[in-house]
């Protein structure tokens, strides 16, 4: 093995990204928990974590840029760094989605509690599972595991569509509950977007490991 210093830098890049991923996962978990418990303190923690996530995004970008410029990586190393750059963006946007959920939960806290015809916790569970699996696939460099994330995305999309439909009806039939329905609608959409970002991460893992670009392809194309 030669280029030891370069390999150490790649390891450092991966570690930094995983630290950032930890912050993002924590923000998502807290936002979900805040929804169930209407915990304002958790919402504030989620909002506060955004700046730390943003700072890490810049650091990781800089490290990746330095490695591209100074080490001129090739093949699997080049794909890894490109994947990290993409995943970095997705993680930052997941942090934004978590913060958006926190803001909506705070809004909901100011409204009378009503029964909403959506199962946000179930949708949240699925989206969070996608994130966990995508990150685990990245940690292990496991393209097969990454593929399984892509399959989950359809379920999240379906649930979001159902929520959109049910909440739309609620707004029509009970306009007085429109503020709560709108907040739930946005939260559902935030979770769906988190699922999309997890899908992107999974696609980047597949690109890194197999060299195959599966973005924008139907699931049936994956692995072919």
């Amino acid at each position, binding site marked *: *093995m*030669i*280029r030891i210093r*370069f390999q150490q830098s790649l390891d450092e890049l991966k570690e930094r990204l995983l630290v950032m991923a930890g912050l993002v996962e924590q923000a998502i978990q807290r936002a979900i928990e805040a929804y169930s418990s209407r915990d304002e303190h958790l919402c504030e923690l989620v909002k506060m974590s955004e700046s730390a996530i943003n700072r890490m995004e810049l650091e990781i970008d800089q490290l990746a840029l330095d490695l591209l410029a100074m080490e*001129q*990586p*090739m*093949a*699997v*190393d*080049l*794909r890894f760094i490109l994947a990290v750059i993409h995943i970095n963006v997705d993680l930052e946007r997941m942090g934004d989605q978590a913060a958006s959920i926190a803001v909506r939960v705070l809004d909901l806290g100011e409204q009378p509690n009503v029964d909403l015809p959506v199962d946000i916790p179930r949708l949240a569970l699925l989206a969070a599972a996608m994130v966990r699996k995508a990150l685990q696939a990245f940690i292990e460099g496991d393209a097969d595991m990454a593929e399984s994330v892509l399959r989950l995305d359809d379920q999240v999309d379906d649930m979001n569509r159902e929520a959109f439909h049910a909440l739309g009806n609620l707004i029509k039939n009970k306009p007085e509950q429109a503020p709560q329905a709108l907040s739930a609608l946005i939260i559902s959409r935030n979770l769906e977007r988190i699922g999309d970002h997890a899908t992107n991460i999974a696609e980047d893992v597949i690109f890194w490991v197999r*060299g195959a670009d599966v973005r924008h392809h139907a699931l049936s194309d994956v692995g072919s």
Partner: protein
Amino acid sequence: MGVEIRVEDLNAWYGTVHTLHDVSLHIPANHVTALIGPSGCGKSTFVRCLNRLHETNPSARAEGTVLMGDIDIYKDASPVEIRRRVGMVFQRPNPFPTMSIYDNVASGLKLNGFRKKRILDEVVERSLKQAALWDEVKDDLKKKSGASLSGGQQQRLCIARALAVDPEVLLMDEPASALDPVSTAKIEDLIFKLKSQYTIVIVTHNMQQAARVAENTGFFLMGKLVEFAATAKIFTNPSDKRTEDYITGRFG
């Protein structure tokens, strides 16, 4: 115009040492093809077989087929004829040190019996222009020697000398490894321009250079051609683990 090269089952030896093993590949006309691999992998031996320079070593021999267009270079032509059709540029610029710039470029033609001054003048000017050296030396053609030029200029002079005999193929064995980055960039620009007229094969240790200039790249290891593919494929997603390990610096 350049000509395609088809190599089939090429083997080469130095004495009893078998240095090239059953190499087969297709080098398209008017393309730049890069050959990479660790020292001693056989890539230089391979290009030296393409103009029959390999056999100038008394202990060396080669077997197999090298088709340059329709001509089997080991059966249908003499080494002298092949070397006229296949120009070569080496790692270290090697102009004839005591000859003028003009005579350096004209030397090949003179060796082939050309004496008419008008033709020689035309060829020297055309070749120096093709090698992107004309503007820098046109006022000193007969005043300055080849050795008086900078390293980068000397290498372009050698390219002009190779082009003067109107070859179809240009072999370049690490043509920029002894040059500074600016001279290297000039040589690379030149390679890009020349490929419309010549088939170019370049041996290089500099993988970024291969990535920049070549459409196709072959990876040699221990006398075997491990992988040959589009350069973008080789450097982003090679098929063979040994290629990947080499270009990512995991061995070499």
